[in-house]
């Protein structure tokens, strides 16, 4: 009996986890475009520094990949 979780306490924890989950999901709406912009900016900066013209494309692709990685992580975290 002592090992059984207190239902009231469990409900309270679930509610708190629910808010954390909401914040994590709403964060995805910002983190995905932010990752693309950051990747592009790093690429542009490297192009400017190294006098090249193609690194911004690689930066853009890495940014998109970073956005997807965050998306997949969030999905996996909540499906466990």
């Amino acid at each position, binding site marked *: 009996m002592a090992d059984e979780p207190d239902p009231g306490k469990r409900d309270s924890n679930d509610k708190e986890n629910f808010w954390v989950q909401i914040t994590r999901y709403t964060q995805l709406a*910002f*983190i995905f475009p*932010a*990752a693309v*912009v950051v990747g592009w900016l790093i690429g542009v900066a490297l192009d400017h520094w190294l006098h090249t013209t193609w690194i911004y494309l690689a*930066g853009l692709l*890495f940014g998109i990949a970073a956005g997807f990685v965050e998306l997949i992580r969030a999905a996996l975290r909540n499906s466990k």
Partner: protein
Amino acid sequence: MPEQLWFTALLNRLFASPVTAFLRSLHIEPRHPAAPIANSFAMEILVFLFLLVLFLMVRSRLSVDCPGALQHMFEGVEGFIQNQSNEIIGHHSESYTPFLAALLFFILFCNLIGLVPSFESPTAVAVVPLGCALCAFIYYQAQGFKHAGIGYLKHFAGPFWWLAWLMLPIEIISHLARVLSLTVRLYANMYAGDMVTLVFISLVPLVLPIPFLGLHIFVSLLQTYIFVLLTTVYLQGAVADEH
């Protein structure tokens, strides 16, 4: 000369020369040498001074037997942050509470100060949320290194060593994107809230703006909560033993 609030004008009258000299010593030429202090910076200083006085008042009136209303309020906020950190990070999260509480109070008062006539929210200017986001970023990275030492860098290498060349730039971009995401979320919400309130006050100065002032307070509280909650989530990722 830029448009200045009365507090900014006061600061510029008192400190314009030393601030301009300091900026020039760093090879930064201020746009207005006679008024180098911007409204947003002046409001930050005001919030800092207000919080300093508030904390000193609480400190001087601490009582175990007969706690006052202010002490109750601060203990409530501290307990709330402590519970949230415990739930997300787990045990040993107590050491992060001072930083998270300071961040919460600073952002909350920066958001709410815009409701006081003749003041404006510094968080409605992009550099202030950026500063807060950079503080959060530096803090959680430092805690990651403090927790795992140089092994913290393994977090950036991904789950397999042979994927490190691909995961390293992705992780770096992902971490930097968190700074941009925190900045844009707080800045955009506070700027939009300020604009909506301002438009309705200028259209109909009586009664109608009251719901929008209420909305501004709600957005201020919500954005502060989200900022602190996300910082806690990032801290949890940095100090987690397995990643």
